[in-house]
């Protein structure tokens, strides 16, 4: 390992501009003649639009246009799409209702956009937006997924009777039910996986710009995947042909999934720029708008059960889930509760029979889609809560019950599609047990009791499927796109290198990590490496960043391109040094003839490639190579988290006194960045477990958690100093052996926290977020 190579704790290159205020975010971009858009939004959860009177708004100072759903329909702009087809158990396709970028005849959630007011200044647009008169006929609303299919529930989309989008199953129902019928023990749980608001620090923003002279569109947007945005906006929504649309996602301040999707607002801004004759239209979300319109995460209601033999051997698992999709199907909303969720229900265990049924329903709420972890936290919560509950029910040690049922040989084919390729689940557990001092827990509990505190310990041995994903496999499961990644390595004549990647960094530190890979391979200093991403005009193509895929998939594409660069450089070096190509080795930035003292620095080879004065016969000049990488399998990060809490029985306040995270991420490029990812993920997972929960009024459908006064985000003093460690088994499926680390913390931690609290208070009936009020009630109900 070099100072800047793989495995080094290199300080993040990008942080200098971020922490000195020189990051360039979408809202920082000021195009000539920019206009400002403000959306008029529905104050009702469900209503018919009877009329929209824009006259007063149009007459207001500075107003350029007021656009409505009728204008959008008149221009034949298509609706937003959901890009993953799910079929119900009866074979019928999912029932996706129309999702216009501006509501036309009906609004379906508070915050649904009804008109776009465009003015010279943002203040003028905002003033004018208040003058748009919308006459509504309010309709009853349903927000609770458990009641969405009730006979008397209001209907959101005609295409989806009973608000049912799909009724999906995975696994062998007959075998599962038979295993339950014959099991010595059955453990059952009712679970609510709480609805979360993603809250990236940078709010969403978009600038749409149409150049009439070129008939060309530019979209600057807060996206995790600009190429996918371009594809969807052109091929499906039909705003512009793909070659006439450039999408730029510059610095993006956090995404957590919420910036994957193609939203109404950027669609409307892009379209509106043409409507107003080619002036840029800029919209930047306010925080209150973000709470109402950024896609939420989770919101599952589940009945789950685990069958065990008398000795604690797992026999079968079944879950029945209602997944809240919200008012419209967001871009990947169908994949999250199905193939990102049901496929993980085997956890780290040998479970011979598994069956799951997921019913996805519409409600009068903000659309729900993937949020850090996306389906896998829901699966992990089911499995790890069941296992912990089983240990208590059977009087077994929760660590030992896990150990007894761990998968130990690989590859392992689960009953729910996935083939785990590598792992050391017992190694993770043992390291975590040692780190937490499990043997000393009883003494710590007794000491806490003497202080009037209830101390508890909880486990979570999670597994996730990352490295999304083998294109053929996801295609067969309904994905509308392939999930490969592309990269280009551009060696300049002076030997510096630009990496153009289809991955997108919005906090992950790609500019550092990816450069470390180049440093390792080519021996070039970090200062001579530039990572280019986020611009469809620069990067050939890309599928973006989500699902912890940038290392396992994005860097694999870079490796493939580097392989090609290296091969060509070796050919040139061999030619220049009159040696056999097979004898050339690359080491420390030099190409050497093995066993001799002949060598050439890499930059001289690069220069030779571009001067082309003396290249091998027939070789093309230049040193620039591109590659596409399609994964061969998912990757399987896994680990054991142990949480130790103290509960104040008088107030219900939970203090996390210890949190140990042992993860197996395969190859780690930059341990500092990986630790940061784990810390952030843990904070979000602890946030879900203890604090965060989107709440709607059940009757009116009004959002009750519309600001940080009521939506509780974890602060630094809410989380402990984490103990983070690793076990490493390399992923056999990609060249670097990487598995991915971006979501693990958020996936693994919620059940550990809830298991710890329920252990402390002796009452297993506790839902997330475990707020002090809920915990206090559970303590006193026990």
């Amino acid at each position: 390992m070099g100072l800047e190579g793989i495995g080094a704790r290199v300080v993040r290159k990008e942080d200098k501009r971020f922490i000195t205020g020189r990051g360039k975010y979408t809202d920082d971009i000021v195009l000539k003649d920019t206009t400002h858009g403000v959306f008029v939004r529905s104050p009702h959860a469900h209503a018919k639009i009877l009329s929209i009177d824009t006259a007063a708004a149009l007459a207001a100072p500075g107003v350029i246009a007021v656009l409505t759903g009728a204008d959008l329909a008149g221009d034949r702009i298509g609706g937003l799409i959901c890009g993953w087809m799910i079929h119900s158990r009866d074979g019928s396709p999912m029932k996706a209702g129309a999702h216009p970028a501006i509501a036309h005849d009906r609004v379906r959630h508070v915050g649904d956009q009804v008109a776009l007011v465009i003015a010279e200044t943002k203040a003028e647009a905002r003033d004018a937006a208040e003058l748009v008169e919308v006459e509504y006929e309010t309709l009853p609303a349903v927000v609770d997924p458990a009641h969405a299919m009730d006979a008397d529930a209001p209907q959101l989309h005609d295409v989806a009777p009973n608000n049912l989008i799909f009724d999906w199953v995975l696994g062998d129902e007959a075998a599962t039910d038979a295993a339950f019928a014959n099991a010595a023990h059955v453990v059952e749980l009712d679970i609510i996986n709480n609805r979360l608001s993603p809250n990236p620090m940078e709010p969403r923003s978009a600038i749409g710009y149409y150049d009439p002279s070129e008939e060309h569109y530019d979209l600057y947007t807060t996206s995790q995947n600009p190429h996918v945005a371009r594809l969807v906006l052109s091929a499906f929504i039909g705003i512009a042909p793909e070659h006439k649309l450039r999408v730029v996602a510059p610095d993006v301040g956090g995404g957590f999934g919420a910036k994957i999707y193609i939203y109404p607002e950027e669609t409307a801004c892009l379209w509106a720029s043409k409507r107003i004759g080619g002036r840029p239209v800029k919209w930047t979300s306010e925080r209150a708008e973000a709470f109402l319109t950024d896609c939420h995460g989770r919101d599952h209601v589940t009945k789950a059960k685990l069958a065990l033999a008398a000795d604690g051997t797992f026999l079968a698992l079944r879950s029945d889930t209602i997944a809240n999709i919200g008012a419209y199907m967001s871009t990947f909303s169908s994949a999250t509760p199905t193939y990102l969720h049901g496929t993980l229900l085997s956890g780290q265990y040998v479970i011979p029979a598994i069956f799951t049924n997921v019913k996805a329903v519409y409600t009068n709420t903000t659309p729900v889609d993937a949020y850090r972890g996306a389906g896998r936290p829901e699966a992990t919560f089911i499995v790890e809560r069941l296992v912990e509950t089983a240990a208590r029910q059977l009087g077994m040690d929760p660590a030992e019950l896990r150990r007894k049922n761990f998968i130990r040989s690989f590859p392992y084919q689960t009953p729910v599609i996935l083939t785990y390729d590598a792992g050391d689940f017992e190694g993770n557990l043992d390291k975590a047990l040692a780190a937490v001092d499990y043997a000393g827990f009883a003494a710590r509990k007794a000491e806490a009791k003497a202080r009037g505190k209830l101390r508890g310990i909880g486990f979570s041995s999670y597994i996730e499927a990352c490295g999304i994903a083998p294109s053929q496999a996801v295609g067969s499961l309904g994905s509308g796109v392939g999930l490969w990644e592309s990269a280009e390595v551009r060696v300049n004549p002076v030997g510096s290198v630009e990496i153009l990647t289809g991955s997108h960094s919005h906090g992950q530190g790609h500019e550092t990590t990816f450069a470390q890979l180049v440093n390792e391979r080519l021996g070039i200093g970090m200062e001579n490496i530039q990572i280019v991403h986020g611009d469809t005009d620069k990067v050939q193509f890309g599928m973006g960043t989500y699902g912890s895929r940038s290392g396992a998939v994005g860097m694999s594409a870079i490796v493939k391109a580097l392989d090609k660069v290296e091969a060509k450089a070796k050919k040139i070096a061999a030619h220049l040094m009159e040696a056999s190509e097979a004898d050339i080795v690359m080491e420390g930035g030099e190409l050497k003839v093995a066993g001799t003292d002949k060598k050439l620095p890499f930059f001289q080879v690069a220069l030779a490639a571009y001067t082309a004065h003396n290249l091998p016969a027939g070789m093309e000049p230049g040193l620039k190579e591109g590659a596409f990488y399609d994964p061969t399998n998912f990757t399987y990060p896994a680990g054991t988290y142990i949480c130790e809490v103290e509960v104040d029985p008088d107030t219900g306040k939970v203090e996390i006194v210890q949190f140990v995270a042992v993860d197996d991420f395969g190859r780690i490029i930059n341990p500092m960045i990986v630790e940061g990812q784990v810390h952030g993920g843990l904070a979000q997972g602890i946030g879900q477990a203890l604090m965060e929960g989107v709440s709607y009024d059940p009757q009116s459908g009004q959002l009750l958690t519309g600001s940080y006064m009521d939506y509780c985000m974890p602060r630094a003093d809410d989380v402990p100093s984490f103990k983070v460690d690793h076990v490493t088994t390399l992923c056999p499926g990609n060249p670097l052996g990487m598995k991915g680390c971006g979501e693990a913390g958020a996936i693994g931690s919620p059940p550990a926290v809830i298991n710890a609290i329920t252990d402390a208070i002796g009452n297993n009936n506790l839902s997330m977020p475990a707020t002090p009020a809920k915990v206090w009630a559970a303590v006193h109900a026990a």
Partner: protein
Amino acid sequence: MYQTTYHRPSSVTEAASLLASAEDVKLLAGGQTLIPTMKQRLAAPANLIDLGKIAELKGITVSGGTVTIGAGTTHAEVNTSADVKAAIPALAKLAGGIGDPHVRHLGTIGGSVANNDPAADYPSAVLGLGATVVTTKREIPADDFFAGMFTTALDEDEIIVRFVFPVPEKAAYAKFANPASRYAMAGVFVAVTGGTVRVAVTGAGSDGVFRWADAEAALAGTMTPAALDGLTADASAMLSDIHGDAAYRANLVKVMAKRAVAALG
């Protein structure tokens, strides 16, 4: 934010005369509630009178068994004042627990008390210590000042000038913070002043800050946490929301009262 006309008087007299003459007016102290409310367009006063540059509203003095704090004194100034720490340490500590550093360096005691947010900390200290609210028109005893949520005895044309706190024998404040906003879900200020026990509760009551008479009576007998064991705060008078129902808040009131008593020393 809508357009507003901004006034910046340099004296209380000038402020009072502006207040009397202007229509649709709001007083701006530290602005920690009013400015966000205006930015959300939930408040839209035509005239804004900024009290922030009036020197006579600032400052802390201790004399003759009282601590006098100008209405324009920030939470940070109260929190760090050596005089307050020496005379009424519970008050200094309370001020240090309001909001975050930004709020504490802009927010003022006068603004907080005049707003009378049912979850604000200061009203419990003013009521618990039996302070006097001195305004441009009169002196109002704390017991007569608070009149329910966001409501006070202040007239439309009246400005708080200062607070006069009697120095207690002992006092303590215990607060259970709302996990999201970190306002009080229950904050209990217990003080013994001139031999009299006062227990003031903020954050929990559906009618704003209140004195818990049963607790005062119990503690008048024995000033120990155990003296409150037999009491139950009246849940029917408590707030209920997504953060905690009335029963939970009633419990918190008792728990915080006991902790405040324990902290009296």
